[in-house]
């Protein structure tokens, strides 16, 4: 790593930016896991209590999961 061999302002900046990139990717993975847990929980709760609004809640959960997947791939490939 150039920051340790040649510590310039630019290399320091690149190092900080790369840390941020990794943090964003890890964050999106956590968000993805959370979205999967939400889907599982909605399915369990839908079985526990059946209301006319439960399908809407499930759609919201899937929408959240779709956004999480999209954000994960965006951070992974675009950043």
């Amino acid at each position, binding site marked *: 790593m150039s920051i340790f061999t040649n510590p310039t302002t630019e290399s320091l*900046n690149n190092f*900080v*930016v790369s840390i*941020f*990139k990794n943090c*964003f990717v890890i*964050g*999106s993975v956590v*968000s993805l896991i*959370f*979205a999967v*847990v*939400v889907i599982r*929980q*909605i399915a*369990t*709760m839908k*079985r*526990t*209590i*059946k*209301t*006319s*609004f439960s399908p809407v*809640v499930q759609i*919201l*959960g899937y929408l*959240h999961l779709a*956004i*999480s997947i999209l*954000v994960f791939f*965006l*951070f992974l490939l*675009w*950043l």
Partner: protein
Amino acid sequence: MPDIFDASDYKKESKKNKVSKKKSPRKTIQKKNFPVKNGCKVDAYSQTLRNEKPTNNPLKAFAAKPVETEFDSQLEGEEIVLMLRRHPITLFKPVVISLIIFFLPFLFFSSPMLNFMTSKLITAFVIGWYMILTSFVLESFLTWFFNVFIITDERIIDVDFSSLIFKNVSSAKIDNIEDITVATGGVVASIVDYGTVYIQTSAEVPELEFEDVPNPNKVSKVLNELMLEEEQEKIEGRVR
């Protein structure tokens, strides 16, 4: 001339009286049969619920006789008479937090804190930030929506969905209810009328708490009416 007492006439009279006594209706406290509206049998004995219309709105915090609502351990013929959630005012805190999360990036961008970041990273930061907000809003809503208290004509059920990972379902039969306590505290709770109903039971779960539910006095009244009905059923031998 004075009438001569005839014992046979007296016997006839007394027989007549006995017959008439038998025919006369006994003075008993009869249960008034109210018309059952919308097929809800609870209307027959609950004055509180008789005045309530069946609830179509699945997002209502105080849903009397909810339509199209079932739960997994529901027995055949068991009817949901009341479904409760926390009062919507309890969502005030998550709403305020959401608003703060929503407006915080504007504060960041107005300051030179993020000057070292590239435009790509700033865009990623904004996307990530609003992703956190979406997750927070969804989690808060789900916790509120699935955290329900159900009162049926036979049981009380407390479905706790304390976080996304923990689920706890406790139930007790109406016959096992021993004591009902209503607690309302605070200015907001008094103004918008919400509070906690503590139900002590002789079942395995010693106490069930219906936390921050709207109209706690009405809930307590319904439970008392259901308890009276259960006692009446026991006396009449109509126990399931």
